[in-house]
Structures are given as C-alpha cells and as structure tokens.
C-alpha cells in the first residue's frame, strides 16, 4: 500500500495535496487512466485538440506516471 498524488491539467493545473492510497503503482496508474473520461465529461469542450492529463506522483513527490487524453474534432466538409 502506498499513497499517490494526482495532479490534473485541463486548461489550468491543479496539484493534489491529499492523495489516494493504492495497493501498488500499477493499480494507481490504471485509476489515473480511467479518470480521464470522467474529467472530460465534466468540462465544456470548446476548443479543438483539448487535452486533459493526470500526472501521478509517488509519496516522495516524484512524478512516476502520466495519462493524457486528447479530444479532437475536425470538419470533413467546409465548416458551416
């Protein structure tokens, strides 16, 4: 069991000062990855190429993993 911290970047950067306890780094990284759709769901998508990322730090504060999701949309005809 170890505590990991999850800093979120979606437009602005929000650093995590509470953290979450997971069995191991792999489980924590999976949760970080799965959180991306959650986060995107809640934010207004206004720009193309909108990016959301979660950087996971271990309990020494060292970044060990980053998950990123990019939302893209493009017109296939002339933009109406």
């Amino acid at each position, binding site marked *: 069991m170890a505590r990991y911290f999850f800093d979120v970047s979606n437009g602005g950067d929000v650093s*995590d000062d509470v953290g979450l306890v997971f069995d191991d780094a792999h489980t924590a990284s999976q949760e970080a990855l799965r*959180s991306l759709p*959650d986060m995107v769901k*809640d934010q207004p998508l206004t720009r193309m190429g909108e990016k959301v990322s979660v950087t996971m730090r271990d309990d020494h504060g060292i970044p060990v993993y980053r998950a990123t999701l990019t939302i893209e949309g493009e017109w296939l005809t002339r933009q109406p």
Partner: protein
Amino acid sequence: MALSKSPFGLLARRLGGDAPLPVAAERAILGLPLIIRTIEASRDIKYEGGTADHCCVILDGWTCCYQSLTDGRCQILSFHVPGDLPDLQSLYLPSPDLGMATVTRSIVAFVPHAEMRKLSDQYPAIAQAFWREVLVSAATHRAWITSLGRRDARQKLAHLFCELYLRLKAVGFTDGNSMPMPLRQTDFADALGLTSVHVNRMLKTLREEGVIDLYARRLVISDWEALCAVADFNPKYLHLTD
C-alpha cells in the same frame, strides 16, 4: 428507560414521521425483542442461510447497501445512518437482491420479521409508518438515479453532502455546520459512479470554492447555500420533519 434514550427511541421518532406514534405503539416498539450486534468496519451484514428473517435497525455507525458486478466493481446504492431501517423491504422480499455492509464500526439491532409483522398488524400507525419508510426509500433512490444520470461529478458530490447532512441532522448527529464523514474517496467513487482520482480532484475544487472543508474524518459545510446551489438540491424527496 425513557423512550428517547433507548436504542429504539430513534426508531420510534423516525417511524413517527409527521405525527408522533400513539403511546401504545411506542411502547410496543420499546418492547421489541432484539438482537444487538456490534459489527466492525467494512464487513458484510449477512443473513444466516441467505434468507432474511430479521430486519435491521442501525443504532450507531454508518452502513451501506450495494450491488456488485462479476468483475468486482461495486455500486453503492445508499448510505445508512442511525435510526435507518436499510432492509425493511426484506419483510416481504426475504431473498436479498442487494448486499449490506458496514462503513464504520456499527451497532445494529436485528428484529425478527414475525415481531415486525405483529407490530404492523396490531398498530395501524406502525403499518403506515413502514409504508412511509419504504416510499421515502424509493424517493431517495429516484433522487440518486437523477444525480447519477444527469449531475456532473462536482454536483453529485455536493448533492450527496446535502442529503447526508440533513439526514444526520434529523437524528441529532450533526454539530453546527459540521458532521462526521467516515466515507473515503473510494466510497464516494463507488456511490457516484466516478473514479476515485476524479473524486479527489472534485473535492479539492469544492474546498477551493470555500463550500466545504474535509479533515479529520469530518465534513464542514462552510457555505450551505452555495452547496445547495452547486447541487441543485431540493430536500423535498427526503420527506424529513423538523
């Protein structure tokens, strides 16, 4: 022992709803034979033999009802606080379609179904109170469906906080604008259909907005009006009486 101080004082008050129960009905509640068990945190509350022949009443601590998927994921359906009867439905549906578990160490009273039936047969006010309990429980599930389906993560959390605060306040477990908050981020995640990482992020947002504070297993509601506004909260569905 005065009714208000007895383990069933909470129950009598709860079942009373809008109007206090007739004295005879209150006495009958006080005279219920009950088995009281203390159950450690994070344990299943199980029925012997898999079929319910008792209803439980939460006397102290927090419990939850849940359903699990075969891959191990879990959906928490409701949280229960002192005074609650989380499995009143088992009186007529003894084969459980959900699991019950403790969140914190809890004191739970088990009342035989036969005794519950006797109570409701003898006292129409109690039969009506059971009906009311089940209907309020259904109303609460409806509110949760709306929340799960249509609120965003920040609103879902705010809505749950509003609900839990009012329910705890009704049984005297709040202290001013603060209340015990034994739920962990993973519990919120399992109740609200979110990942714990996102819950963590949204709790931080609510704290930074000055709406709530969360420390030492207590929730402080710094701005009730703002919390209700975030949640789009209407307490009607709880049908609480002051």
